[in-house]
């Protein structure tokens, strides 16, 4: 049933007509050229172009629309006749649903459709990434407060909201599981039909007991990390409609449109070619826009009503219903010899998976694989258990759990340094991974520049130690510094995750580069354009990127796990080479020359002894341009035996070291991070503006998660579902002095030598802060967040004056 609605106007980024877009594109390229000239380039001939841009600090194309308020976020797209969808959500954390009465809701003027889970055929009700366990709408049981039960579409959002309030749900409450410890108790109420354990992963190398016996020092600690929210600023939002060909089209802010494409097809029963999922401009994601939020319900309502349907979650719904960072308890033993050589590591993790599986197993697998990174440890045991609880599902979030593993590992490394009287840099150097070292999974490493990140931080560390020794307090606050490191595998863990790119050209010389991985706000489209243009030998201004669309691009995997620059960048590079070859061959054919006499470089085509512009070359090829399609696929040989934890889980690894300076107000228990330094081995930096932005943003998110952020979980609900109570860093709370170093290194497998960098700078921050607090105030925090109350108590206890618990 084709609808009369065509796609709303505008390209992926801009909500304005083509003429306006063309004008602003010229403005943009004028600015790019001005920057190139300021950098000392001499740009004589091409009117707009610049070539060879990899490594240049260039502004991003999409930002032009964003600073003007013309960005096409999903909630900004309107269609005639559009309905508004709202959800009825569970008020119970764990309960059987006895009755859902929607009679009164249906009678609300303006209500067009009311959808219950039982109306979806039983074999299509469940969705999920690895395991399909999550109902689109709960049917006979709810597993967390905030779980969607009914979706209502109405002429206005107000009518939909009013109707939601009139839906009556009768529940029979079930015992609520608040923690993984409770979940694992023998007599615990079961949340899932298969029991309360989501995963129990174990990996061992060497002989742990022997390793501990060899140690002169054994540290044993427990670290606790609470649940956190991604707090991207744009609430999940989408719009669904039937296009004139009857293709069910979902425009939505997501990290992985091709996943939703399959899920929507599954839930609606439509064949894949009758569904299209296209990513809109994404207002931040950080792992929180991997799972279904509005997509499937919108699809079903659009099919039901035949009308475009839109939904945007409220901020409160984001906090109570989208996935969270896993709360974890990590018990860890680390053994070392007197001279600081690590002999053994024993890690025991208990993780809170929330109500559904989401990415729990992927987070768990990554945590096990990364145990002990980036150090050489001969004897390791890593045990990771993740269990269901009646809180929102825990899923993917920036670093997939590694920030917590690093909180434990790096804290113990710092404690070890102190115990042995070594500098934290020295103790790391004595164990640091280098080329040809093997990870605990048995993967051999290459192009590792971890040592260099320590070298980069060391002089700053030494200087700050001296400064603080001379002036240990500032304005009555205690000063301290601390550092921590990271090693991080780029891309999916242990399964192939290829990326592909395609490039097309028209007779006017306009080039389209298509790649499946969406730009989620990080500027990946810009990096891909730079790589594709340089590889093809053409000017950046010719290339327009289309990404994240299930119809227009191949499935290249999600933008997550820091993989897009590396995987899609490689695909774009290979594609650029192929495109270049095809152009050269086509020009050769048109001029009747052997192909080797034609070369495309620097945006010009050398034809025999002639040199013509790229546009002229395309005009020469004429209709033949229609046949040109550059193609690139990057599919590194990743293979891991999941059961044995052996093999090559990642295509490459990024390394780094972060350092922070703090000031601690011991009276208030307040920690202020006043400066930060980072040094990363990110391989080649494609666009320094973008890469630095990722590093800065990661540092600040790390500070927030170390100091303030937590989802307060009480009696089965998230008790702080607003920014007022979920405290995040503002401009006043963070250091504006963040100095970033990229150590010189090239990854032989990366595009122009690049690795991935989106998540990494966050990983060491909590441990670095904990160590700085130790330096300042003499206590070792082992809990995240280290908020004022926590730190105040910790300091009071250390001073022998414990604070009595406030009455509940």
């Amino acid at each position, binding site marked *: 049933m084709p609808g009369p609605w065509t796609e709303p106007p505008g390209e992926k980024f801009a*909500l304005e007509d083509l003429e306006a877009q063309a*004008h*602003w594109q010229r*403005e943009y390229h004028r*600015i790019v050229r001005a*920057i190139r000239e300021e950098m000392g380039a001499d740009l004589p001939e091409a009117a707009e172009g610049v070539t060879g841009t990899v490594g240049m*600090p260039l*502004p*991003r194309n*999409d*930002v*032009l*629309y*964003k*600073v*003007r*308020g*013309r*960005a096409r*976020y999903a*909630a*900004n797209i*309107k269609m005639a006749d559009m309905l508004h969808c709202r959800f009825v959500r569970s008020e119970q954390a764990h309960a059987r649903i006895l009755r859902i009465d929607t009679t009164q809701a249906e009678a609300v003027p303006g209500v067009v459709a009311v959808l219950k889970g039982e109306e979806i055929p039983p074999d299509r009700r469940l969705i999920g990434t690895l395991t399909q366990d999550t109902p689109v709408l709960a049917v006979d049981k709810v597993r967390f407060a905030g779980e969607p039960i009914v979706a209502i579409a109405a002429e206005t959002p107000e009518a939909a909201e009013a109707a939601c309030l009139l839906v009556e749900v009768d529940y029979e409450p079930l015992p609520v599981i608040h923690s993984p410890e409770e979940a694992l108790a023998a007599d615990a109420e079961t949340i899932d039909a298969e029991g309360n354990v989501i995963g129990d992963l174990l990996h061992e190398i060497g002989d742990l007991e022997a390793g501990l016996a060899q140690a002169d020092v054994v540290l044993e600690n427990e670290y606790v990390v609470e649940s956190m929210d*991604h*707090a*991207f*600023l*744009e609430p999940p939002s989408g719009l669904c409609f039937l296009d004139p060909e009857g293709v069910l089209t979902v425009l939505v802010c997501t990290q992985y449109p091709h996943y939703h494409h399959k899920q929507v097809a599954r839930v609606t029963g439509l064949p894949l070619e009758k569904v299209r999922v296209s990513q809109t*401009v994404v*207002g*931040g*994601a*950080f792992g929180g826009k991997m799972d279904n939020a509005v997509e499937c319900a919108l699809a079903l309502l659009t099919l039901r009503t035949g009308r475009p349907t839109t939904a945007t979650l*409220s*901020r409160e719904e984001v906090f109570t219903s989208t996935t969270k960072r896993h709360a974890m308890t990590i018990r860890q033993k680390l053994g070392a010899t007197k001279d600081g050589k690590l002999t053994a590591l024993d890690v025991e993790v208990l993780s809170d998976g929330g109500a559904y599986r989401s990415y729990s197993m992927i987070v768990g697998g990554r945590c096990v694989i990364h145990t002990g990174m980036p150090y050489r440890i001969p004897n390791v045991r890593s045990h990771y258990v993740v269990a269901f609880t009646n809180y929102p599902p825990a899923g993917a979030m920036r670093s997939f759990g590694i920030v917590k593993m690093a909180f434990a590992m790096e804290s113990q490394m710092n404690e070890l340094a102190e115990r042995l009287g070594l500098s934290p840099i020295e103790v790391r150097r004595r164990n640091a991974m280098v080329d040809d070292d093997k990870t605990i999974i048995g993967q051999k490493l290459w192009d590792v520049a971890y040592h260099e990140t320590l070298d980069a931080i060391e002089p700053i560390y030494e200087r700050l130690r001296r400064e603080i020794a001379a002036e240990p307090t500032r304005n009555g606050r205690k000063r301290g510094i601390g550092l921590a490191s990271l090693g991080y595998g780029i891309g999916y863990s242990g399964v192939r995750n290829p990326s592909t790119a395609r490039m097309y050209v028209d007779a006017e010389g306009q080039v389209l580069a298509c790649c499946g991985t969406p730009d*989620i*706000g*990080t*500027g990946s489209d810009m990096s891909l354009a730079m790589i594709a243009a340089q590889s093809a030998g053409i000017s950046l201004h010719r290339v327009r990127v289309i990404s994240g669309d299930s119809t227009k691009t191949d499935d290249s995997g999600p933008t997550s796990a820091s993989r897009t620059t590396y995987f899609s960048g490689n695909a774009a590079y290979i594609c650029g080479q192929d495109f270049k070859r095809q152009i050269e061959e086509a020009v050769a054919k048109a001029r009747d020359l052997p192909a080797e006499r034609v070369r495309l470089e620097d945006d010009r085509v050398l034809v025999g002894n002639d040199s013509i512009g790229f546009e002229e070359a395309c005009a020469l090829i004429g209709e033949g341009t229609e046949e040109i399609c550059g193609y690139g696929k990057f599919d590194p040989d990743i293979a891991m035996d999941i059961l044995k934890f052996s093999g090559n889980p990642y295509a490459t690894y990024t390394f780094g070291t972060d350092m922070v300076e703090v000031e601690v107000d011991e009276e208030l228990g307040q920690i202020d991070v006043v400066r930060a330094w980072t040094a990363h081995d990110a391989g080649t930096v494609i666009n320094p*503006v*973008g890469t*630095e*932005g990722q590093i*800065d*943003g*990661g*540092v*600040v*998110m790390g500070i927030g998660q170390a100091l303030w952020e937590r989802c307060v979980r009480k009696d089965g609900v998230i008790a702080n579902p*607003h*920014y*007022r109570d979920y405290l*995040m*860093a*503002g*401009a*006043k709370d*963070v250091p*504006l002095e*963040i100095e970033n170093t990229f150590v010189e290194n090239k990854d032989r497998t990366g595009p122009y030598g690049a690795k991935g960098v989106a998540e990494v700078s966050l990983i060491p921050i909590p441990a670095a802060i904990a160590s700085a607090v130790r330096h300042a105030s003499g206590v070792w925090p082992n809990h995240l967040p280290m908020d004022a109350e926590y730190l105040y108590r910790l300091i009071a206890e250390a001073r022998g004056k414990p604070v009595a618990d406030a009455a509940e």
Partner: protein
Amino acid sequence: MTQLDISLTVNGARHELSVGPTEMLTEVLRRRLDMTGTNRDCGMGICGACTVLLDGQPVSSCILLAALADGSEITTVEGLERDGRLTAVQEAFLRHGAVQCGYCTPGFVITSTALLEENPSPSREEIVEALKGNLCRCTGYKKIVEAVEAVARAKGDGVGVS
């Protein structure tokens, strides 16, 4: 429900509207006037994504009843550019990498514009103070502050700014 007749001048254009007593300015801009540059997130006056200028002063439009804005002049992010050119603030945000996902950007651009209008050469502390009501999850704020400083510097140098 009683409707209230109000008039608003938005980016120089006058609009006579009849609004509900509980309707917020964000909704009026986004839904009635189709100006979606002003983003909405928290709806509680905390994040600053919805910031507009009300008679030159930055306000959170999500907690401002449209009826209370009767007779006032509103500037949204769409109303800043002149003759197809970015303002100095917009161009500085673009050049300095002060924008990633961009959801917070209209709010920061508006707030920064108001600050520089009032105080052409603010100190770092004054900039941070002015921006404290705007949240950004992506950039870490450093490059946003640097962008505002760059505009202030250019003004000091007498380079033209709109």
